[in-house]
């Protein structure tokens, strides 16, 4: 079965109250939801909490769930609503503490912004920012595809029209440079 068919079958079973189907759906969509959420807000803990909350809600109202043709799209939309709700709720606190750093959640965050924002340590944020400046745009693009989007070297090579070897070497050099800066 394809990824899509899998998810549709999980969904139908979930609607009938099948608990293992809920967990199967969770496992198969977790990383996609996480990446999607991180682009809305660079707070991995908040995103993870919202994903858990989303699935709890799916379970608690599984009897009322509609039939859905595109399951991931349905989940993305629900997660986004959940996240924006939480962000709006928190915005009062944020406005008081760091009023200037708040970004409009409608704007998608860049990869660099996301990996810096999820770090809590100020020193680490600073060093990471410095380190990223030493990389070429090409290196950053490939590192993002590899580590953030989770593509394989073959997929990256195909997408960026180069050999697997070159893709690997580009990423290897990028990490070597980053490591030196982060030490």
């Amino acid at each position, binding site marked *: 079965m394809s990824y899509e068919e899998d998810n549709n079958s999980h969904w139908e079973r979930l609607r009938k109250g099948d*608990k293992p189907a*809920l*967990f199967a759906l*969770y*496992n198969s969509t*977790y*990383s996609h939801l*996480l*990446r999607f959420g*991180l682009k809305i807000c*660079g707070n*991995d803990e908040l995103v*993870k*909490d919202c*994903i*858990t*909350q989303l*699935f*709890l*809600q799916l*379970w*608690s*109202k599984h*009897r009322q769930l509609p039939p859905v043709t595109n399951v991931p799209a349905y989940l993305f939309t629900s997660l986004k609503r*959940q996240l924006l*709700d*939480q962000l709006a*709720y928190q915005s*009062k*606190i944020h*406005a*008081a*503490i760091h009023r200037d750093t708040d970004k409009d959640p409608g704007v998608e965050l860049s990869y660099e912004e*996301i*990996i810096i924002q*999820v*770090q809590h340590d100020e020193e680490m944020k600073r060093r*990471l920012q410095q380190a990223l400046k030493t990389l070429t745009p090409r290196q950053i693009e490939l*590192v993002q595809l*590899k*580590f*953030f989007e*989770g593509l*394989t*070297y073959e997929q990256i090579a195909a997408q960026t029209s180069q050999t697997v070897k070159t893709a*690997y070497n580009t*990423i*290897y050099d990028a*990490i*070597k440079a*980053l*490591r030196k800066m*982060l030490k």
Partner: protein
Amino acid sequence: MNFQEYEVIDFACDESFQRYCLEADDRDLHFWENWLTQHPEKRLTVQEAREIVMILSAKQGNRLEQLKHLEDGIARYDLLQEALEEEQPPVVLRRRHIWKYAAIATGVLLLAGSSFLFFRHTPAPAEKHQLVTAGQDPRKTLVLPDGSSVILRQHSSLQLAPGFNKDNRNLTLTGEAFFDVTQNAQHPFMVHTAALDIKVLGTVFNVSAYTNSRETETALFKGKIEVTLPGQPQQKIILQPNQKLVTHAATPFAIAPLDADPVSHKAREIAWVRNRLEIENEPLEVIAGKLEQWYGIRVVFADETVKHYRYSGTFESETIIKALDALQLSYPFSFKMEQGEIIISK
């Protein structure tokens, strides 16, 4: 493949290793966990590689830990459903319940630590310093020349009279202090404050006598104390254990029982001695006063209605910001810090 020759960057670039870090695939997870137990010498190298993967993936992963949370949540939900049983349609879980947990984790977690911090600090040589001030320290513990111990609260000070422990045991308190007084029949222990005088015969008590507050509170835990008000030396007010005397500039004095916490059974009057701030269904206006005392910062209101919002909670107060954050979560208001003041508004 010979992973033993791998260095940090080799691991970080390895696709199976990446899937292991992100918990994306159970086979990789199993393989690497197993491999690591067989090659403990590579632990540090692997650790560093793992950190790199986590940074670059923006801390994705954690799937298994999160799955555990979901399973727990669903188990709790199912239990609740069972309990509600016949009570028909499924209840929609309250959103924000995770935030409640967050609040508990940040501000609160309190039930621990019932032992007081009596001798945590090295006793100050009180003989040499006749005036002792707590300054910015939240609490300062001292042992007086007669063996009595005192915990002095932040911004409070204690002035020993000349000849303390030789001719007398008189001292003057400004602010708030917790006393554990040794017995000495020859020299009664006398505490003078702006509002009243306390005569002690071996006992444990707390006095709150801030000069900027119109109220002075004396709470007795053990033993017996005798209080006299200025200008009425013949009227002696005797306090029994677990009673407190509240005097106010504008109203007659009152004796009231101590405010015992229903959970810990500890008197609320000395919550400050233990490292935390306790609030029990109090209006924000009163809480603000406590925060002022606790943190030594002025708190003002820009809005009248907010003053009457009521809150409960106990804080292991690290910063006033955190305490206010936690309060905001249960019923929202805004606050900002400006020129050394905290301004609370709607």
